[in-house]
């Protein structure tokens, strides 16, 4: 589904990523962990076309997408969320999800001039279904900026659901959440996002990683230092040292 070969990203003198080889087969939920600044978000940005890699190749679903613009990659069936949450703040919950859907609908110039569906109209069932799945249907007319943090993260996920993405990349989906909210997010990822999709989840919270991931990859200083089954990887001495060294595993 997703293949990285020798992926490298430099910001001036800083090598945020170097020599990353990674294979994400279809149907997998791959977790990516690593200390702050280890290059996790950079990896996600490079895959989604926020910026081109400095070296290496990226293939998605059989197509070589190295250097492609973000909108072209997205149209291949890829969706993502953001570590610092990006929504259209002055649009309603409904409009945010609907916008994600119709941004990808082809339809030419005439299609563009078609009027927006009114909430409740026939064109809106998919949007409502996605909102239902993440438990936001009741808040559909609320402006996105008025939502509390857990709901905003779930709105980002609804946006990925509605476009039928084959690959969903989540950047710290439980960031800033309480243990209860984290557990709820883990359930959403397992039961709603994962079925029928391939997922990559960046996360610091072990509760989420061990609860949902089928495989785990560890980054440190822009390099991949371990990869394998979550329990086995977290047991390795070098991982405990770089990642869990300063942090209490039960809390992080």
């Amino acid at each position, binding site marked *: 589904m997703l293949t990285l070969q020798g992926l490298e990203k430099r910001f001036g003198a800083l090598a945020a990523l170097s020599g990353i080889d990674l294979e994400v087969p279809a149907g997998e939920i791959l977790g990516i962990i690593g200390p702050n600044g280890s290059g996790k978000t950079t990896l996600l940005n490079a895959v989604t076309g926020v910026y081109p890699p400095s070296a290496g190749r990226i293939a998605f679903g059989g197509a070589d997408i190295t250097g492609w613009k973000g*909108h072209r990659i997205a149209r291949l069936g890829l969706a993502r969320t953001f570590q610092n949450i990006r929504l259209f703040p*002055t649009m309603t919950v409904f*409009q945010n999800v609907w916008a994600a859907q*119709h*941004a*990808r609908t082809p339809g030419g110039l005439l*299609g563009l001039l078609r*009027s*927006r569906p009114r909430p409740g109209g026939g064109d809106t069932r998919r949007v409502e279904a996605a909102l239902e799945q993440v438990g936001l249907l009741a808040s559909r007319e609320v402006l996105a900026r008025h939502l509390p943090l857990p709901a905003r993260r779930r709105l980002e996920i609804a946006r990925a659901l509605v*476009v039928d993405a084959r690959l969903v990349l989540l950047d710290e989906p439980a960031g800033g959440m309480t243990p209860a909210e984290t557990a709820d997010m883990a359930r959403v990822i397992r039961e709603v996002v994962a079925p029928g999709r391939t997922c990559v989840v960046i996360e610091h919270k072990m509760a989420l990683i061990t609860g949902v991931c089928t495989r785990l990859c560890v980054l440190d200083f822009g390099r991949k230092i371990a990869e394998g089954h979550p329990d086995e990887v977290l047991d390795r001495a070098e991982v405990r040292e770089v990642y869990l060294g300063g942090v209490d595993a039960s809390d992080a």
Partner: protein
Amino acid sequence: MDDYVITVLSNIGMISFVALSAYLLLLTGVISFGQQAYFGLGAYAAGAATAMLLLPIWAGILIGACVAGLMAALVGALTLRLRGLYFSISTLAFAEMVRLVLLIVEVQVEVDGELVGPAGAEGFHDIRWMFERDISLGEFMLLIYALLALVLVALLLIERSRLGSIFRMLGSDDLLADMQGLNVVGYRVLAAGLAGVLAGIGGALYAHFTTYVEPQFFNVMLGVHALAYGLIGGLGTAFGPLIGVAIDVGFLEAVRFIQGYRMIVFGGLVALLLIFMPRGLLDEERVHRLKARFRRRGDAHAAGS
């Protein structure tokens, strides 16, 4: 109505086209200081069509709109890849270039024994369509407002359409729009072309209302004002920039005792609004609340009847 009132109202109408032009680009998140160039191009092209080629006024307006729109799309395709401030500066540079070119272009033809056409710094005189047909200022004002109403309806329809929400997505967060599969540059070029058409119509009307145009009128102050109108009136609806124009050209012009201080009052107003209402009087959130209230009232009506 006396001629003074008609002139002020007509000015409000014609400036509104440039204000809507800048507003359309603001919607998509780009700041142009150069919409006056397309106003000017529309004025010259439309003037040339009626005064030199003796075409009817509707053809003049159409040609003015097309010339301005095509030019704007072309310039946009070349410059909209630039980020934020760099794009804004390029719009300013292009507009100044247009003005300087118009200052030296002299193309005149003989019509009824007189030379007509752009005469460099002298401007383009004798765009006499109104006089030749004995059309009064009042009647021309009606034409201005009829076209403005048409343009406004078109913009309101666009805002309700998918294209309208795509424009707002770009304006709100272009990275997010890109990540959702939208060709950001492509849609902005489209918006720039449409914005050029709007400014071009305004310019075409202006040339025929005043019967002459000179490059000096299309200076950067016009562009800056056009931008400010949207920021004052609000970016939540196309009515926003019109309110901005009405406040500046209508109110500040009419209140005579602040005449000398108009620029100071205007500048202060813009500064205050940018601090307290950064997206103008009618911003997206206020428009959302107003719509929700109307919808509720509508529902109550439907339930009651």
